[in-house]
C-alpha cells in the first residue's frame, strides 16, 4: 500500500492538471463547472492518500457547495465571450511569467526539505503533549480548536463577513431605493 502512494499521487496530479486545462478551455460554461468538480474530487483523493482524512472530508463537502454555487451562476446564462479575438499581450505575458516562475521554483526547491521527510519542530511538541494537554485523540482537531483556536475564531469572522457581503450584494432591492419608493407612495 505504501509503495503505491507516490505513483497514485503522480497520476492524480496529472489528472488535476488536465482537468484544469479542460475547465479553462471548454466552450460550454457547464462543462467548465463539471471539470472543476472533477479536479476537486481528485484533490480529495490526494488528501486521503497523504494521510489527511479530515481535509479529504472537508474538501468533498466544500466541493459540493462550490459546484452548487457555480451552477446557480452559470445555468441559463450563455457565454458570449467565445469566438472573440484573444488578448495577445495578456497571453504572452502570462506564458513568459509562468515560465520564469517555474524555472525559479525549480531552482529554489533544492533548498527545501525533500518530499516525504517533513521538518516537524513545532509538531513534535504538539504530538508529544497533545493527548495530555487537550484530551483529543485527533491531533488535527487538537491543533485547530485548542493550540491555534484564535485562527479558528478569525476564520469564523471571515466566513461571517463573506456571507453578509454575498447577502448584501444579492439583495434584490436596496434599502435606500425601497425607502424612496415608500416616500413616493406617501406623496402620491
Amino acid at each position, binding site marked *: 500500500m505504501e509503495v503505491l502512494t507516490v505513483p497514485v499521487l503522480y497520476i492524480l496530479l496529472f489528472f488535476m492538471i488536465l482537468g484544469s486545462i479542460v475547465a479553462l478551455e471548454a466552450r460550454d460554461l457547464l462543462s467548465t463547472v463539471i471539470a472543476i468538480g472533477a479536479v476537486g474530487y481528485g484533490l480529495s483523493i490526494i488528501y486521503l492518500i497523504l494521510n489527511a482524512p479530515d481535509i479529504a472530508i*472537508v474538501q468533498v463537502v466544500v466541493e459540493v457547495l462550490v459546484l452548487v454555487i457555480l451552477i446557480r451562476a452559470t445555468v441559463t446564462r450563455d457565454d*458570449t465571450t467565445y469566438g472573440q479575438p484573444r488578448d495577445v499581450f495578456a497571453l504572452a*505575458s*502570462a506564458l513568459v511569467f509562468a515560465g520564469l516562475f517555474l524555472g525559479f521554483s525549480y531552482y529554489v526547491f533544492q533548498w527545501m526539505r525533500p518530499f516525504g521527510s*517533513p521538518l516537524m519542530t513545532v*509538531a513534535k511538541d504538539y504530538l508529544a503533549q497533545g493527548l495530555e494537554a487537550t484530551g483529543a485523540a485527533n491531533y488535527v482537531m487538537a491543533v485547530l480548536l485548542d493550540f491555534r483556536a484564535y485562527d479558528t475564531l478569525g*476564520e469564523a469572522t471571515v466566513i461571517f463577513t463573506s456571507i453578509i457581503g454575498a447577502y448584501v450584494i444579492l439583495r434584490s432591492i436596496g434599502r435606500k431605493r425601497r425607502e424612496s419608493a415608500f416616500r413616493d407612495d406617501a406623496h402620491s
Partner: protein
Amino acid sequence: MPKEMLPYLLTMVLLMIGVYGIVVKRNIIKIIVGVIITEYAVNCFLILQGYRDGGIAPIMTADMNTATFVDKSVDPVPQALILTAIVIGLGTVALMVALAIRLYEKYGTFDISEIRRLQG
C-alpha cells in the same frame, strides 16, 4: 534536482494554470475557476510539505503509545491550517459568484471587456 521534488513542481504547474486563467480569460466564471484552481494548488503544496514516508494519519488509537506515534505520524499543523484555508476559500468563492450574478443582471454579459461603466 532530486526526484523527490517532482510533486512540488507539479503543484507549481497547477498554480501557473490557475494564474493563466485569471490573467488571460475574459469570462468572469472562468476567472473565478482560475482562482479556485490556484487555491487548490497552494493547499495541495502545503499538505505535501507535511507528508512523511510510511506515515500514519495524526489520529491516536488505543493500541499505540506516544513515543512511537511521534515517530510515525504526519505533520498535523499544515493540515489544521489548510482546513481553515479551504473553508475560507468557499466563502470568497461565494462572494465572487454573488458579484458575478449581480454584474450579469446589470450588464447582461459575463465578458469583462464589455463591463466598463463603473457608476453607482
